[in-house]
């Protein structure tokens, strides 16, 4: 450890020069000119997590990125409505969710659907070898869940929110969070089993043809 030794050698001393370069008044310090915007900084810090949530929720990276971009625009336009910056993450997820609902309605009118295969391929490749086929089955199963079930599973398992935080974010009672989550997990299990059965059945058919 390079620094363990250094710490012992250097007791904290007055190593910084004072005098002309020292600023005793915040207003006179150059940093006061270059101050960054706390909302913008907090927003940027939330973007990696928001993008993950969006992609998992919609099952398509291109659409998720469009939604996050729209979400940034909307958040910047409505930032005065956010009273507590500590609530930024749930506030952004709510905005994103509503944008997605609007997008679903538009797509229904146009009759276009997203393809889950690309995301399943990408995440399958990212997963460690023992987990990659399970990852693919999971992504497909999650895509077949209804929106409520998908959302609550992601909030608990990926975003790691508490039940209380989820109740506040979705504006539903705590009991509803618990019962919805139980149903979502049961449904995911059924779908995972059916995905596995399909994979086995396809493999059997292929083997019998050979």
């Amino acid at each position, binding site marked *: *450890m*390079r*620094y363990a030794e*250094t*710490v012992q050698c*250097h007791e*904290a001393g007055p*190593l*910084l020069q004072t005098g*002309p*370069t*020292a*600023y005793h008044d915040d207003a*006179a310090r*150059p*940093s*006061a*000119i270059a*101050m*960054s*915007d*706390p*909302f*913008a*900084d907090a*927003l*940027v*810090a939330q*973007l*990696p997590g928001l*993008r*993950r949530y969006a*992609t*998992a929720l919609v099952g398509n990276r291109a659409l998720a*990125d469009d939604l*996050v*971009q729209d979400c*940034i*625009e909307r958040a*910047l336009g409505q930032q005065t409505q956010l009273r507590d910056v500590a609530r930024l993450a749930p506030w952004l997820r709510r905005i994103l969710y509503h944008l997605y609902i609007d997008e679903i309605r538009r797509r229904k009118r146009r009759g276009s659907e997203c393809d889950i295969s690309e995301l399943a391929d990408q*995440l399958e490749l990212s997963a460690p070898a023992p*987990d990659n086929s399970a*990852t693919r089955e*999971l992504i497909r199963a*999650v895509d077949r869940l209804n929106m409520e079930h998908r959302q609550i*599973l*992601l909030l*608990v*398992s*990926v975003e790691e929110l*508490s*039940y209380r935080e989820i109740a506040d974010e979705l504006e539903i009672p705590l*009991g509803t969070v*618990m*019962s919805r*989550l*139980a149903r979502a*997990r*049961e449904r995911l*299990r059924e779908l995972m089993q059916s995905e596995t059965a399909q994979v086995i059945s396809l493999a059997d058919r292929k083997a019998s043809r050979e």
Partner: protein
Amino acid sequence: MNNLNAIGDEDLHAYIDGALGEERVAAVRDALAKDPALAARVALFQADKALLKAAYAPLAEHPLPSEWIARAHKKARPQRDWRRAAAIAAAILVVAGTPLAWRYYAPAKSGDVVEEALNARQDGAQGAHYLAANDQARRYDTALRQVVASNVRIPDLSRMGYKFRGLNLYDKAAEIVYQGPRDQLFTLYVRRSDGSTRFDQFERRGLRICIWQDDQISTVMAGNISAAVMQRLATLSYTGLTS
């Protein structure tokens, strides 16, 4: 299935999520010990939960499009009024006659900030003023602000088990040094930005690197850590630095 009926599905899921009170946890554990089928079912749910977390985790590790970061900062920054701009211009004119003025007002020259950071990390305290960690937190913040010439502070990474060990001060940059839970070194190199924005994560010289740059500061984080840990440390560092 008496145990299941007595406990209920919602209790089981709350148990999986660590949301049960101690008394109910004991009741669930007792039921699981007595009912292997129930224990197997809970294990499957736990495996699904872990797989969900692991499967989607890489999605947060992709570099953000730089235009998102630029957009967030561009629109959110409050417009300066002309009086403030004039005051700043006057202040710059007053101090422009001294060499020190340029040191503080000029953006850092564009070079590879990542190489700079890695060289600093490799050289350790050589060529730098070093402030070892003690209890005078304010002193480090002041020193950091003077060198970087921006309103930044030493981020507190103790939530992730990283202890602040000291601060290396260079001419126009600083390296904040942390020691991780398994004695691993994590460094945060900070200097003035050249005005462009950048966010990226990659490996270089055997280290995981994250560069997070806005139009004010460049930060280069380096450590022998996983991408997922870097993602969390980077977020905590950047928000702590600029909060």
